[in-house]
Protein backbone atom coordinates (compact mmCIF):
# COMPACT_ATOMS: atom_id res chain seq x y z
CA UNK A 1 0.00 0.00 0.00
CA UNK A 2 1.09 3.56 -0.73
CA UNK A 3 -0.31 5.85 1.93
CA UNK A 4 -0.69 9.51 0.91
CA UNK A 5 -3.29 10.72 3.39
CA UNK A 6 -0.99 12.06 6.08
CA UNK A 7 -3.01 15.22 6.69
CA UNK A 8 -5.69 12.92 8.09
CA UNK A 9 -3.26 10.92 10.20
CA UNK A 10 0.41 10.11 9.74
CA UNK A 11 1.37 6.58 8.78
CA UNK A 12 3.72 4.94 9.46
CA UNK A 13 4.75 6.22 12.89
CA UNK A 14 8.47 6.58 13.65
CA UNK A 15 10.15 3.42 14.99
CA UNK A 16 10.78 5.04 18.39
CA UNK A 17 7.02 5.64 18.83
CA UNK A 18 6.17 2.05 17.89
CA UNK A 19 8.92 0.63 20.12
CA UNK A 20 7.97 2.77 23.11
CA UNK A 21 4.33 1.73 22.96
CA UNK A 22 5.11 -1.94 22.34
CA UNK A 23 7.53 -2.00 25.26
CA UNK A 24 5.08 -0.21 27.53
CA UNK A 25 2.34 -2.70 26.70
CA UNK A 26 4.70 -5.54 27.46
CA UNK A 27 5.84 -4.11 30.79
CA UNK A 28 2.66 -2.52 32.13
CA UNK A 29 -0.38 -0.65 30.92
CA UNK A 30 -1.74 2.44 32.57
CA UNK A 31 -0.90 5.69 34.19
CA UNK A 32 2.58 5.45 35.65
CA UNK A 33 1.71 7.92 38.40
CA UNK A 34 -0.77 5.38 39.73
CA UNK A 35 1.69 2.55 39.56
CA UNK A 36 4.34 4.38 41.53
CA UNK A 37 3.93 6.14 44.87
CA UNK A 38 1.36 8.69 43.69
CA UNK A 39 2.77 11.68 45.58
CA UNK A 40 5.66 12.58 43.34
CA UNK A 41 5.06 12.62 39.63
CA UNK A 42 8.06 14.68 38.59
CA UNK A 43 9.70 11.94 36.58
CA UNK A 44 6.77 10.03 35.18
CA UNK A 45 6.14 10.07 31.45
CA UNK A 46 3.16 12.41 31.75
CA UNK A 47 5.26 15.08 33.44
CA UNK A 48 8.14 14.52 31.06
CA UNK A 49 5.82 14.78 28.05
CA UNK A 50 4.21 17.93 29.43
CA UNK A 51 7.65 19.50 29.86
CA UNK A 52 8.79 18.41 26.41
CA UNK A 53 5.70 19.68 24.58
CA UNK A 54 5.65 22.94 26.54
CA UNK A 55 9.25 23.48 25.54
CA UNK A 56 8.42 22.55 21.93
CA UNK A 57 5.86 25.40 21.71
CA UNK A 58 7.90 27.75 23.94
CA UNK A 59 5.29 27.67 26.71
CA UNK A 60 6.85 29.12 29.86
CA UNK A 61 4.57 27.43 32.39
CA UNK A 62 4.37 23.75 31.54
CA UNK A 63 1.24 23.17 33.66
CA UNK A 64 -0.70 25.41 31.28
CA UNK A 65 -0.30 22.60 28.75
CA UNK A 66 -3.32 20.32 29.10
CA UNK A 67 -3.80 16.84 27.64
CA UNK A 68 -7.08 16.00 25.88
CA UNK A 69 -8.17 13.45 23.31
CA UNK A 70 -7.26 15.87 20.51
CA UNK A 71 -8.09 19.17 18.85
CA UNK A 72 -11.83 18.58 18.71
CA UNK A 73 -12.11 18.11 22.46
CA UNK A 74 -9.79 21.07 23.06
CA UNK A 75 -11.82 23.36 20.79
CA UNK A 76 -15.14 22.23 22.26
CA UNK A 77 -13.87 23.15 25.70
CA UNK A 78 -12.65 26.50 24.41
CA UNK A 79 -15.88 27.42 22.65
CA UNK A 80 -18.46 25.86 24.97
CA UNK A 81 -16.72 26.54 28.28
CA UNK A 82 -16.26 30.29 27.85
CA UNK A 83 -18.11 33.09 29.64
CA UNK A 84 -18.78 35.40 26.69
CA UNK A 85 -18.69 39.09 27.48
CA UNK A 86 -18.94 40.89 24.12
CA UNK A 87 -20.84 37.97 22.58
CA UNK A 88 -18.85 38.23 19.39
CA UNK A 89 -16.36 35.78 17.85
CA UNK A 90 -14.19 36.44 14.83
CA UNK A 91 -12.99 33.50 12.81
CA UNK A 92 -12.15 32.66 9.19
CA UNK A 93 -13.58 30.74 6.26
CA UNK A 94 -10.59 28.38 6.38
CA UNK A 95 -11.74 26.71 9.61
CA UNK A 96 -12.31 23.01 10.11
CA UNK A 97 -15.60 21.64 11.40
CA UNK A 98 -13.91 21.08 14.77
CA UNK A 99 -14.18 24.86 15.12
CA UNK A 100 -17.26 25.56 13.00
CA UNK A 101 -19.64 23.04 14.54
CA UNK A 102 -18.99 24.08 18.19
CA UNK A 103 -19.37 27.71 17.05
CA UNK A 104 -22.70 27.03 15.35
CA UNK A 105 -23.80 25.19 18.46
CA UNK A 106 -23.08 28.07 20.87
CA UNK A 107 -24.57 30.51 18.38
CA UNK A 108 -27.86 28.60 18.15
CA UNK A 109 -30.47 30.21 20.35
CA UNK A 110 -28.02 32.78 21.68
CA UNK A 111 -27.11 36.32 20.71
CA UNK A 112 -23.52 35.40 19.88
CA UNK A 113 -22.41 36.92 16.60
CA UNK A 114 -19.96 35.11 14.32
CA UNK A 115 -17.83 37.09 11.85
CA UNK A 116 -15.96 35.24 9.13
CA UNK A 117 -12.84 36.66 7.50
CA UNK A 118 -12.59 35.58 3.85
CA UNK A 119 -9.48 34.18 2.19
CA UNK A 120 -7.96 34.49 -1.26
CA UNK A 121 -7.77 31.69 -3.84
CA UNK A 122 -4.74 30.20 -2.07
CA UNK A 123 -6.31 30.24 1.38
CA UNK A 124 -4.56 33.28 2.88
CA UNK A 125 -6.88 35.46 4.96
CA UNK A 126 -7.77 39.01 4.00
CA UNK A 127 -5.96 41.47 6.30
CA UNK A 128 -8.14 44.43 5.23
CA UNK A 129 -11.26 42.65 6.46
CA UNK A 130 -9.40 41.49 9.55
CA UNK A 131 -8.46 45.09 10.45
CA UNK A 132 -12.09 46.18 10.15
CA UNK A 133 -13.46 43.24 12.14
CA UNK A 134 -11.12 43.62 15.11
CA UNK A 135 -12.01 47.29 15.51
CA UNK A 136 -15.38 46.24 17.02
CA UNK A 137 -15.23 44.50 20.45
CA UNK A 138 -14.89 40.70 20.35
CA UNK A 139 -14.17 37.84 22.72
CA UNK A 140 -12.27 35.39 20.55
CA UNK A 141 -10.27 35.54 17.37
CA UNK A 142 -9.97 31.92 16.18
CA UNK A 143 -7.77 30.99 13.25
CA UNK A 144 -6.68 27.79 11.56
CA UNK A 145 -2.88 28.07 11.38
CA UNK A 146 -2.38 25.70 8.44
CA UNK A 147 -5.12 24.88 5.95
CA UNK A 148 -5.78 21.20 5.37
CA UNK A 149 -7.25 22.13 1.97
CA UNK A 150 -4.57 24.27 0.29
CA UNK A 151 -1.64 24.00 2.72
CA UNK A 152 -1.52 27.77 3.22
CA UNK A 153 0.11 28.91 6.47
CA UNK A 154 -1.26 32.03 8.16
CA UNK A 155 1.13 34.59 9.63
CA UNK A 156 0.19 34.06 13.28
CA UNK A 157 2.82 36.41 14.67
CA UNK A 158 1.39 39.31 12.68
CA UNK A 159 -2.21 38.37 13.45
CA UNK A 160 -1.41 37.84 17.14
CA UNK A 161 0.03 41.33 17.36
CA UNK A 162 -3.12 42.87 15.86
CA UNK A 163 -5.48 40.80 18.03
CA UNK A 164 -3.59 41.70 21.23
CA UNK A 165 -3.72 45.36 20.31
CA UNK A 166 -7.53 45.13 20.43
CA UNK A 167 -7.58 43.09 23.67
CA UNK A 168 -9.25 39.96 22.33
CA UNK A 169 -8.19 36.42 23.09
CA UNK A 170 -6.08 34.96 20.29
CA UNK A 171 -6.81 31.31 19.52
CA UNK A 172 -4.96 29.02 17.15
CA UNK A 173 -6.15 25.72 15.77
CA UNK A 174 -2.83 24.00 15.19
CA UNK A 175 -4.25 20.60 14.20
CA UNK A 176 -2.34 20.61 10.91
CA UNK A 177 0.60 22.78 11.92
CA UNK A 178 1.79 21.36 15.25
CA UNK A 179 4.98 19.54 14.32
CA UNK A 180 4.83 20.78 10.73
CA UNK A 181 5.51 24.49 11.38
CA UNK A 182 7.46 26.22 14.14
CA UNK A 183 5.08 27.66 16.73
CA UNK A 184 6.19 30.07 19.42
CA UNK A 185 3.40 30.82 21.90
CA UNK A 186 5.22 33.81 23.40
CA UNK A 187 6.15 35.45 20.11
CA UNK A 188 2.65 35.05 18.67
CA UNK A 189 0.74 36.34 21.73
CA UNK A 190 -1.33 33.18 21.80
CA UNK A 191 -3.98 32.64 24.52
CA UNK A 192 -5.04 29.18 23.45
CA UNK A 193 -3.66 26.67 21.02
CA UNK A 194 -5.38 23.38 20.20
CA UNK A 195 -3.29 20.52 18.83
CA UNK A 196 -3.65 16.88 17.99
CA UNK A 197 -1.03 14.20 18.47
CA UNK A 198 -1.68 11.79 15.61
CA UNK A 199 -0.81 14.04 12.67
CA UNK A 200 2.54 15.85 12.42
CA UNK A 201 3.51 15.09 16.01
CA UNK A 202 3.58 11.41 15.00
CA UNK A 203 1.74 10.10 18.07
CA UNK A 204 -1.24 7.75 18.04
CA UNK A 205 -4.85 8.80 17.62
CA UNK A 206 -6.83 9.83 20.70
CA UNK A 207 -4.22 12.14 22.18
CA UNK A 208 -3.73 15.88 21.85
CA UNK A 209 -4.13 18.91 24.01
CA UNK A 210 -4.16 22.65 24.40
CA UNK A 211 -2.28 25.50 25.93
CA UNK A 212 -4.25 28.11 27.88
CA UNK A 213 -2.96 31.45 29.09
CA UNK A 214 -3.49 32.42 32.76
CA UNK A 215 -5.74 35.27 31.65
CA UNK A 216 -8.04 33.08 29.55
CA UNK A 217 -8.14 30.41 32.27
CA UNK A 218 -9.96 32.90 34.53
CA UNK A 219 -13.02 32.83 32.22
CA UNK A 220 -12.77 29.36 30.73
CA UNK A 221 -14.66 26.64 32.59
CA UNK A 222 -13.85 22.95 32.30
CA UNK A 223 -16.40 20.87 30.41
CA UNK A 224 -15.76 17.80 32.52
CA UNK A 225 -14.96 17.53 36.22
CA UNK A 226 -14.07 14.51 38.31
CA UNK A 227 -11.13 12.65 39.74
CA UNK A 228 -7.69 14.22 39.49
CA UNK A 229 -5.68 12.27 42.07
CA UNK A 230 -5.26 15.46 44.15
CA UNK A 231 -7.46 17.22 46.79
CA UNK A 232 -9.85 14.31 46.84
CA UNK A 233 -11.81 15.61 49.87
CA UNK A 234 -12.90 18.80 48.06
CA UNK A 235 -16.28 18.95 46.35
CA UNK A 236 -15.14 21.18 43.51
CA UNK A 237 -12.57 20.73 40.80
CA UNK A 238 -9.08 21.83 41.93
CA UNK A 239 -8.31 25.25 40.47
CA UNK A 240 -4.64 24.48 39.82
CA UNK A 241 -3.44 23.61 36.36
CA UNK A 242 -3.33 21.11 34.81
CA UNK A 243 -5.89 19.45 37.17
CA UNK A 244 -8.58 22.07 36.48
CA UNK A 245 -9.07 20.74 32.94
CA UNK A 246 -7.77 17.18 33.30
CA UNK A 247 -10.45 15.17 35.10
CA UNK A 248 -10.39 11.40 34.74
CA UNK A 249 -7.75 8.89 33.79
CA UNK A 250 -5.31 10.19 31.24
CA UNK A 251 -4.43 8.48 28.01
CA UNK A 252 -1.09 7.18 29.16
CA UNK A 253 -0.23 5.29 25.96
CA UNK A 254 -1.21 8.31 23.89
CA UNK A 255 0.95 10.62 25.98
CA UNK A 256 3.83 8.18 25.76
CA UNK A 257 3.49 8.13 21.96
CA UNK A 258 3.36 11.92 21.91
CA UNK A 259 6.53 12.19 23.97
CA UNK A 260 8.40 10.02 21.48
CA UNK A 261 6.71 11.59 18.46
CA UNK A 262 7.79 15.06 19.53
CA UNK A 263 11.29 13.72 20.23
CA UNK A 264 11.34 12.40 16.67
CA UNK A 265 10.31 15.79 15.25
CA UNK A 266 12.92 17.58 17.36
CA UNK A 267 15.65 15.15 16.35
CA UNK A 268 14.74 15.29 12.66
CA UNK A 269 13.92 19.05 12.70
CA UNK A 270 10.77 20.72 11.43
CA UNK A 271 12.73 22.29 8.58
CA UNK A 272 13.99 18.93 7.30
CA UNK A 273 10.50 17.41 7.53
CA UNK A 274 8.96 20.39 5.68
CA UNK A 275 11.61 20.26 3.00
CA UNK A 276 11.08 16.56 2.40
CA UNK A 277 7.29 16.84 2.19
CA UNK A 278 7.52 19.75 -0.23
CA UNK A 279 9.98 17.80 -2.37
CA UNK A 280 7.43 14.96 -2.55
CA UNK A 281 4.64 17.40 -3.47
CA UNK A 282 6.87 18.96 -6.14
CA UNK A 283 7.26 15.52 -7.76
CA UNK A 284 3.49 15.34 -8.22
CA UNK A 285 3.26 18.96 -9.30
CA UNK A 286 6.01 18.71 -11.91
CA UNK A 287 4.70 15.42 -13.29
CA UNK A 288 1.07 16.47 -13.57
CA UNK A 289 0.99 20.26 -14.02
CA UNK A 290 0.98 20.17 -17.82
CA UNK A 291 -1.84 17.67 -18.21
CA UNK A 292 -4.80 19.66 -19.43
CA UNK A 293 -7.38 17.43 -17.75
CA UNK A 294 -5.89 18.10 -14.31
CA UNK A 295 -6.75 21.18 -12.24
CA UNK A 296 -4.35 21.83 -9.37
CA UNK A 297 -5.32 23.72 -6.21
CA UNK A 298 -3.09 26.67 -5.24
CA UNK A 299 0.14 26.07 -7.18
CA UNK A 300 1.45 29.22 -5.44
CA UNK A 301 1.31 27.50 -2.07
CA UNK A 302 3.16 24.48 -3.44
CA UNK A 303 5.87 26.78 -4.80
CA UNK A 304 6.14 28.47 -1.41
CA UNK A 305 6.95 25.13 0.25
CA UNK A 306 3.47 23.68 0.79
CA UNK A 307 2.95 20.06 1.70
CA UNK A 308 -0.42 19.40 0.04
CA UNK A 309 -1.02 18.43 -3.56
CA UNK A 310 -4.74 18.86 -4.20
CA UNK A 311 -6.44 18.55 -7.55
CA UNK A 312 -9.32 17.24 -9.57
CA UNK A 313 -9.59 15.66 -13.00
CA UNK A 314 -11.96 16.74 -15.78
CA UNK A 315 -14.59 14.12 -16.66
CA UNK A 316 -14.02 12.13 -13.48
CA UNK A 317 -15.64 12.56 -10.09
CA UNK A 318 -13.20 12.92 -7.21
CA UNK A 319 -14.78 9.89 -5.58
CA UNK A 320 -14.09 7.77 -8.69
CA UNK A 321 -10.43 8.82 -8.81
CA UNK A 322 -9.96 7.98 -5.12
CA UNK A 323 -11.79 4.69 -5.62
CA UNK A 324 -9.67 3.71 -8.64
CA UNK A 325 -6.43 4.69 -6.88
CA UNK A 326 -7.36 2.49 -3.93
CA UNK A 327 -8.91 -0.46 -5.72
CA UNK A 328 -6.69 -0.65 -8.82
CA UNK A 329 -3.39 0.71 -7.51
CA UNK A 330 -3.51 0.30 -3.70
CA UNK A 331 -2.84 4.02 -3.24
CA UNK A 332 -4.64 5.84 -0.41
CA UNK A 333 -5.56 9.50 -0.88
CA UNK A 334 -8.63 11.44 0.20
CA UNK A 335 -11.40 13.31 -1.58
CA UNK A 336 -14.10 15.70 -0.44
CA UNK A 337 -14.32 18.92 1.53
CA UNK A 338 -11.81 17.79 4.15
CA UNK A 339 -14.18 19.05 6.87
CA UNK A 340 -13.47 22.68 5.89
CA UNK A 341 -16.63 23.40 3.88
CA UNK A 342 -16.58 27.21 3.78
CA UNK A 343 -13.28 27.42 1.98
CA UNK A 344 -14.56 25.91 -1.25
CA UNK A 345 -16.38 29.12 -2.16
CA UNK A 346 -13.04 30.91 -2.26
CA UNK A 347 -10.51 28.62 -3.92
CA UNK A 348 -10.21 27.83 -7.62
CA UNK A 349 -12.21 29.47 -10.39
CA UNK A 350 -15.72 29.01 -11.85
CA UNK A 351 -16.60 26.73 -8.95
CA UNK A 352 -14.12 24.21 -10.33
CA UNK A 353 -13.63 22.72 -6.85
CA UNK A 354 -17.27 22.96 -5.78
CA UNK A 355 -17.42 19.17 -5.18
CA UNK A 356 -14.21 19.29 -3.15
CA UNK A 357 -10.77 18.11 -4.12
CA UNK A 358 -8.58 15.04 -4.19
CA UNK A 359 -5.89 15.60 -1.57
CA UNK A 360 -2.45 13.99 -1.63
CA UNK A 361 -0.40 14.51 1.51
CA UNK A 362 3.01 12.87 1.92
CA UNK A 363 4.87 12.53 5.20
CA UNK A 364 8.52 12.44 6.14
CA UNK A 365 8.45 8.69 5.40
CA UNK A 366 7.04 9.00 1.87
CA UNK A 367 9.54 8.03 -0.82
CA UNK A 368 10.18 9.43 -4.29
CA UNK A 369 9.24 6.11 -5.81
CA UNK A 370 5.86 6.19 -4.04
CA UNK A 371 5.16 9.65 -5.45
CA UNK A 372 6.21 8.48 -8.91
CA UNK A 373 3.85 5.50 -8.62
CA UNK A 374 1.04 7.90 -7.75
CA UNK A 375 1.82 10.07 -10.80
CA UNK A 376 2.00 7.00 -13.03
CA UNK A 377 -1.42 5.88 -11.73
CA UNK A 378 -3.01 9.26 -12.42
CA UNK A 379 -1.56 9.36 -15.92
CA UNK A 380 -2.87 5.88 -16.60
CA UNK A 381 -6.34 6.81 -15.33
CA UNK A 382 -6.41 9.95 -17.45
CA UNK A 383 -5.07 8.00 -20.43
CA UNK A 384 -1.79 9.83 -21.02
Amino acid at each position, binding site marked *: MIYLNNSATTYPKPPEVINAISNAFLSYEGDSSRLFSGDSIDNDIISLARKKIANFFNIKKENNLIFTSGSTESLNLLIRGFEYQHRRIITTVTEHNSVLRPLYRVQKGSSIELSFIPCDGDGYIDFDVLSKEVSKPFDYFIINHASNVTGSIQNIEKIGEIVKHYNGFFIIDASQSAGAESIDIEKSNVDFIAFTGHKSLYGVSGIGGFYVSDELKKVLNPLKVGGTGVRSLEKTQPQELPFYYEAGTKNYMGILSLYHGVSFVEKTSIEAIKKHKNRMVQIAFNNLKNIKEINIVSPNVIQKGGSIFAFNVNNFTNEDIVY*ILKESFDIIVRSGYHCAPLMFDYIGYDKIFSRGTIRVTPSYFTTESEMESFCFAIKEIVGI
Partner: protein
Amino acid sequence: MISVVNTKDILNCVGDPFIKEITLDSPITKEIIFKLGEGGELEYLDRLKKPFFKISYSENYLIKGVEGNNSLRVILKDPELKNGDLVIKKGFNYLLSVLEYI
Protein backbone atom coordinates in the same frame (compact mmCIF):
# COMPACT_ATOMS: atom_id res chain seq x y z
CA MET B 1 -23.11 -18.97 -8.69
CA ILE B 2 -21.46 -16.00 -7.02
CA SER B 3 -22.81 -15.05 -3.60
CA VAL B 4 -22.89 -11.85 -1.59
CA VAL B 5 -20.97 -12.27 1.67
CA ASN B 6 -21.42 -8.78 3.11
CA THR B 7 -23.10 -5.45 2.48
CA LYS B 8 -22.14 -2.16 4.09
CA ASP B 9 -23.54 1.37 3.86
CA ILE B 10 -20.86 3.94 3.07
CA LEU B 11 -20.99 7.59 4.09
CA ASN B 12 -18.81 9.99 2.17
CA CYS B 13 -17.56 13.52 2.81
CA VAL B 14 -19.59 15.27 0.12
CA GLY B 15 -22.81 13.93 1.59
CA ASP B 16 -23.96 11.51 -1.10
CA PRO B 17 -26.92 9.88 0.59
CA PHE B 18 -26.88 6.24 -0.48
CA ILE B 19 -23.82 4.15 -1.24
CA LYS B 20 -23.88 0.43 -0.62
CA GLU B 21 -20.71 -1.61 -0.75
CA ILE B 22 -21.22 -5.25 -1.59
CA THR B 23 -18.62 -7.94 -1.00
CA LEU B 24 -18.77 -11.08 -3.09
CA ASP B 25 -17.31 -14.50 -2.39
CA SER B 26 -15.21 -14.41 -5.56
CA PRO B 27 -13.57 -11.84 -7.81
CA ILE B 28 -15.52 -9.76 -10.32
CA THR B 29 -14.80 -11.02 -13.83
CA LYS B 30 -15.04 -9.32 -17.20
CA GLU B 31 -18.05 -11.55 -17.89
CA ILE B 32 -19.90 -10.17 -14.85
CA ILE B 33 -19.05 -6.60 -15.79
CA PHE B 34 -20.37 -6.96 -19.32
CA LYS B 35 -23.44 -8.83 -18.13
CA LEU B 36 -24.19 -5.99 -15.69
CA GLY B 37 -23.46 -3.54 -18.48
CA GLU B 38 -26.25 -4.95 -20.64
CA GLY B 39 -28.82 -3.22 -18.43
CA GLY B 40 -27.20 0.21 -18.52
CA GLU B 41 -24.50 2.42 -19.95
CA LEU B 42 -21.08 0.86 -19.34
CA GLU B 43 -17.82 2.77 -18.85
CA TYR B 44 -14.91 0.32 -18.84
CA LEU B 45 -11.36 1.57 -18.33
CA ASP B 46 -9.46 -1.38 -19.72
CA ARG B 47 -6.28 0.66 -20.07
CA LEU B 48 -5.77 0.03 -16.33
CA LYS B 49 -4.03 -3.15 -15.22
CA LYS B 50 -7.05 -3.74 -12.99
CA PRO B 51 -9.85 -2.22 -15.08
CA PHE B 52 -12.38 0.11 -13.46
CA PHE B 53 -16.01 -0.08 -14.52
CA LYS B 54 -19.02 2.09 -13.88
CA ILE B 55 -22.49 1.36 -15.17
CA SER B 56 -25.19 3.98 -15.15
CA TYR B 57 -28.81 2.77 -15.10
CA SER B 58 -31.88 4.71 -16.11
CA GLU B 59 -33.48 3.85 -12.74
CA ASN B 60 -31.12 6.39 -11.13
CA TYR B 61 -28.43 4.18 -9.71
CA LEU B 62 -24.85 3.32 -10.63
CA ILE B 63 -22.80 0.20 -10.10
CA LYS B 64 -19.03 0.60 -9.98
CA GLY B 65 -16.07 -1.57 -9.16
CA VAL B 66 -12.72 -2.91 -10.29
CA GLU B 67 -12.21 -6.13 -12.25
CA GLY B 68 -10.47 -8.78 -10.17
CA ASN B 69 -11.62 -7.37 -6.81
CA ASN B 70 -14.29 -8.86 -4.58
CA SER B 71 -16.29 -5.74 -3.85
CA LEU B 72 -18.40 -3.28 -5.80
CA ARG B 73 -20.68 -0.37 -5.00
CA VAL B 74 -24.28 0.53 -5.78
CA ILE B 75 -24.69 4.30 -5.67
CA LEU B 76 -27.68 6.62 -5.92
CA LYS B 77 -27.12 8.94 -8.90
CA ASP B 78 -29.24 11.88 -7.82
CA PRO B 79 -28.67 12.84 -4.17
CA GLU B 80 -31.89 14.90 -4.17
CA LEU B 81 -34.03 11.94 -5.17
CA LYS B 82 -36.73 10.84 -2.72
CA ASN B 83 -36.96 7.16 -1.75
CA GLY B 84 -33.27 6.69 -2.51
CA ASP B 85 -33.22 3.59 -0.34
CA LEU B 86 -35.75 1.94 -2.64
CA VAL B 87 -33.68 2.82 -5.70
CA ILE B 88 -30.59 1.30 -4.09
CA LYS B 89 -32.59 -1.80 -3.21
CA LYS B 90 -33.61 -2.05 -6.84
CA GLY B 91 -29.97 -1.79 -7.92
CA PHE B 92 -28.95 -4.42 -5.40
CA ASN B 93 -31.68 -6.78 -6.58
CA TYR B 94 -30.63 -6.26 -10.18
CA LEU B 95 -27.05 -7.14 -9.20
CA LEU B 96 -28.27 -10.30 -7.47
CA SER B 97 -30.29 -11.31 -10.51
CA VAL B 98 -27.25 -10.98 -12.76
CA LEU B 99 -24.98 -12.86 -10.35
CA GLU B 100 -27.49 -15.69 -10.18
CA TYR B 101 -26.91 -16.51 -13.83
CA ILE B 102 -23.13 -16.29 -13.83
